């Protein structure tokens, strides 16, 4: 694995010649704005946009909770509605009795992914020029989505251990011990499908939009952009729903 420092390196897009001939739009894949920190290469553009998203979420949360009133007004009202929405996701999957413990995790996942997808779709990052690569949704980098998916894995393992201790492993022998390999395999396919689903959807949206913008720069990409915004929110909903469902499975 000497040459493969990163989980997934995408090479430069072969349609680069179009970038040179038409300067209206370009498709860029696999060019990253690298930060070299202590011998480790980081994808800088992902960090920048994630920090912006985290900052926005923190600001929204602090503004909503800074001056709480008994009868919520404007912003507090909005934030309460948001939290209730995520609460609904967790409660529907995990169940009334124990969802409160896992609510923070599920809410954070939903809000962060939602923020990332929408930040990539709505904010005109193209206006900010980087030396290399471009700012986009952090979730279009597979390293981000794999990190989120592994966090989900860790969380459901922790949930299972906390509830049942080592008895958690009994689950692998059910319904029959013959299914042991499949049960073990499932622990690997869960994060794999979680990460690929999110990464693929976000990247597919951005690719479709870039290709369309490349072909027809005006008006035609607009419906696809709207679809991208919609798909971004659905993917956030799905990721958090699945995370909650896995936690529930471990708690059963």
């Amino acid at each position, binding site marked *: 694995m000497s040459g493969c420092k990163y989980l997934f390196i*995408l090479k430069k897009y072969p349609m680069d010649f179009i970038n040179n001939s038409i300067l209206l739009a370009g498709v860029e894949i696999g060019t990253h704005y690298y930060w070299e920190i202590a011998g480790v290469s980081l994808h800088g553009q992902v960090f920048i946009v994630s920090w912006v998203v985290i900052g926005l979420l923190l600001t929204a949360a602090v503004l909503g909770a800074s001056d709480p009133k008994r009868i919520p007004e404007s912003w507090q009202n909005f934030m309460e509605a948001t939290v209730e929405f995520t609460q609904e996701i967790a409660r529907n999957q995990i169940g009334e009795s124990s969802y409160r413990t896992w609510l923070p995790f599920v809410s954070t996942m939903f809000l962060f992914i939602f923020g990332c997808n929408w930040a990539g779709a709505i904010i005109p990052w193209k206006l900010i020029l980087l030396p290399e690569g471009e700012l986009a949704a952090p979730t279009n980098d597979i390293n981000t989505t794999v990190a989120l998916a592994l966090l989900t894995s860790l969380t459901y393992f922790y949930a299972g251990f906390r509830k049942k201790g080592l008895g958690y492993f009994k689950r692998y022998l059910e319904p029959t011990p013959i299914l042991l390999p499949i049960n073990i395999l499932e622990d690997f396919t869960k994060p794999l499908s979680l990460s690929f689903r999110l990464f693929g959807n976000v990247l597919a949206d951005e690719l479709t939009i870039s290709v369309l913008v490349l072909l027809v720069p005006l008006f035609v990409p607009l419906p696809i952009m709207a679809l991208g915004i919609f798909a971004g929110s659905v993917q956030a909903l799905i990721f958090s729903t699945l995370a909650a469902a896995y936690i529930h499975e471990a708690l059963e």
Partner: protein
Amino acid sequence: MDSIIAAASVIGAGLSVGLAAIGPGIGQGTAAGQAVEGIARQPEVENQIRGTLLLSLAFMEALTIYGLVVALALLFANPFAG
């Protein structure tokens, strides 16, 4: 990149997305059809049906996306490119 490998990768990428779109296409069609039937029978639960439908459509779409990921890996991160 070897031209044979390049050609095979491009064909493989096209096939992987195209074939991966067949199954989910059928599945999504069936699901949407059943949902419309359900709404026609019980218009009062339309919102609930729509929510469930969108969620399951996204799950099916994920299958095509796996094909897309394979295609992207073949095009941009080909392990056999050497």
